């Protein structure tokens, strides 16, 4: 570990200066931030010789100064936003939409036609009011071990709360957009925080997009937590569309009650250096969790997905399907850990990581499953593959008149089709297919 206090760079001084500048008057909030900042200062950023970080070197993050930038004026911002192809953001006036620019809620870009009883709202006023939901959920003891989560908590100022009361099923998806800006000279930073609380037997779909403009340089360091009550159903989509010059670190933590169902999709399309951490806790009998991921990389993108599926109770089911399409000199890392605790009898867990390396590319993938099983009556399987486009299939398509490029594109698309096929949010799968079709057409 790299103790930041001993660092000779100006990085820590920058974080320290900004932390000192935060308003300390809200005692609860300030104490929580202070604990988090102290943890961050002690731990420093993870080092690539550290367990869990060996394949992802984040020196470019730990040795650069990132500071929050002011949001561009609406006259500039709106047309640029509209020019981004963001399939996860519903811009219609009737949508449930929360937009954040450089960490702050942008009411003018948002739309909130609130269904009765639900709270879908920015965090800032709730933090100020010491809202009970935030007191209970803004800080997690088990996440104090992670420097990036600590950093996010230390600078917690805004974000999104989605709270669905017991028994309410929300048909319309909620879209949340976190946009970050910055340049090479003035690198930006944001700490998006999303808290999703789904009551007993409720149902909700949330589509969270993290994005930036082409060429912008920034770090977005996001934390999302999902708490699904007994019998709740939550579909969560994370669309990562950062600029290829951006850095992105994310943490998704899910906790599930009895017989609840959570499907968490992670679609990574952008970002130069990306680390996604997922920790899913199956904490009630009969809970089902699906982690569904796709990373479509090219150029020098580096995307690391580290997931933990934590079976804490009996009779739970987990499915993890991650697929990667890698071109150029991109690097993919997949670490999939499954923990089956002693009490978690009759666990049914399947993990699969399949990768397609495009021909002529110098891309690399490292895939590592880790099974830790402490119960004796369980079914756990895992499999990882790395392959190239099937030459037989390519010839078959061409022999029917489809051109080489189109045939390649069709096969890549077919490889990813089952991952996209699991996305249930109305219209999103088709929109995503469109974005990927464009990407692979290049």
């Amino acid at each position, binding site marked *: 570990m790299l103790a930041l206090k001993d660092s000779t760079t100006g990085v820590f001084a920058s974080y320290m200066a900004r932390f000192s500048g935060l308003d300390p008057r809200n005692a609860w909030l300030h104490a929580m931030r202070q604990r988090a900042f102290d943890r961050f200062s002690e731990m420093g950023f993870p080092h690539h010789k550290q367990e869990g970080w060996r394949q992802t070197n984040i020196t470019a993050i730990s040795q650069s100064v990132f500071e929050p930038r002011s949001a561009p004026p609406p006259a500039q911002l709106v047309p640029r936003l509209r020019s981004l192809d963001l399939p996860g953001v519903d811009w219609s006036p009737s949508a449930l939409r929360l937009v954040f620019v450089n960490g702050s809620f942008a009411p003018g870009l948002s739309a909130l036609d609130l269904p009765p009883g639900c709270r879908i709202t920015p965090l800032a006023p709730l933090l100020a009011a010491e809202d009970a939901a935030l007191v209970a959920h803004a800080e997690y003891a088990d996440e104090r071990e992670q420097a990036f989560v600590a950093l996010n908590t230390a600078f917690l100022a805004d974000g999104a709360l989605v709270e669905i009361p017991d028994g309410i099923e929300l048909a319309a998806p909620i879209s949340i957009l976190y946009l970050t800006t910055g340049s090479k000279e003035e690198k930006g930073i944001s700490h998006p925080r999303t808290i999703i609380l789904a009551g007993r037997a409720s149902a909700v779909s949330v589509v969270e997009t993290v994005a930036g403009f082409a060429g912008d340089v920034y770090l977005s360091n996001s934390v999302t937590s999902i708490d699904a009550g007994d019998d709740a159903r939550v579909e969560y989509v994370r669309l990562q569309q950062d600029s290829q010059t951006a850095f992105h670190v994310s943490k998704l933590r899910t906790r599930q009650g009895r017989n609840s169902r959570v499907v968490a999709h992670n679609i990574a399309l952008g970002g130069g250096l990306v680390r996604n951490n997922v920790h899913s806790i199956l904490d009630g009998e009969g809970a089902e969790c699906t982690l569904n991921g796709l990373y479509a990389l090219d150029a020098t993108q580096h995307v690391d997905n580290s997931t933990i599926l934590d079976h804490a109770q009996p009779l739970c089911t987990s499915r993890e399907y991650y697929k990667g399409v890698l071109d150029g000199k991109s690097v993919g890392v997949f670490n999939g850990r499954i923990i089956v605790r002693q009490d978690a009898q009759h666990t049914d867990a399947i993990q699969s990581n399949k990768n397609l390396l495009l021909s002529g590319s110098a891309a690399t993938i490292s895939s590592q499953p880790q099974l830790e099983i402490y119960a004796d009556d369980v079914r756990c399987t895992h499999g990882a593959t790395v392959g190239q486009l099937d030459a037989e299939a390519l*010839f078959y398509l*061409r*022999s*029917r008149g489809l051109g*080489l490029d189109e*045939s390649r594109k069709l096969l890549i698309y077919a490889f990813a089709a089952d991952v996209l096929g699991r996305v249930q949010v109305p219209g999103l799968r088709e929109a995503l297919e469109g974005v990927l079709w464009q990407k692979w057409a290049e």
Partner: protein
Amino acid sequence: MLEIRDLHAEVGGREILRGLDLNLRAGEVHAIMGPNGSGKSTLAQVLAGRDTYGVTAGTVRYQGEDLLPLSPEDRARAGVFLAFQYPVEIPGVSNNYFLRASLNAIRKYQGQEELDAVDFLALVQKKMKLLHMDDALMKRAVNEGFSGGEKKRNEIFQMAVLEPKLAILDETDSGLDIDALKTVAAGVNALRSPDRAILLVTHYQRLLTYIVPDRVHVLAQGRIVKSGGKELALELESKGYQWLEGEQAAVC
């Protein structure tokens, strides 16, 4: 339609075709028979443009033009169709999408208007009846989970939709039970026309009972060693391929 002269082809440094000659005119159906390893499938793949085979000598002219420099897709667009011996499964791509993209690529190349979804559906339904196929097939992924017989039938169905000028059927009869064989044969016979040529590549005489060829050629060690009428197939069936060992070269 198709003129092959002194064709030599190799794979991995091993010569498979060793001076093959063949002349197939529009309106004709020819059968190429031969023992395993004689080069039948190599010929089919070379004609379709498979790049794992290298042509080392000889010429192939299709409709008077040199076929060999063309990419597989351009051959298909110009009217060449290969019904695969082992049709490839392509999970994630529906038959419907695939076949419409294929038909429209060919139509575009030939200067015809592309078909919209409605016209395409009408065409497909007509052709499905011809091969007694279930409508649900169009929504399924290409060949995925199909039985051997269904895959072969799907090849002939594609051929019926794409209406090629030169169709090469590589061991289309293998893996078919007698009912499926009759259905497939009826489908092929329905496509016989004065402006289309069909080349049947087969190991057994069985298929030729239902698709009666105009000429039969025997391929052995990469060359045509004997040619004759449809009765040659029956003769081969009764005497076996060993009968031809020592026979002298081609009579095309």
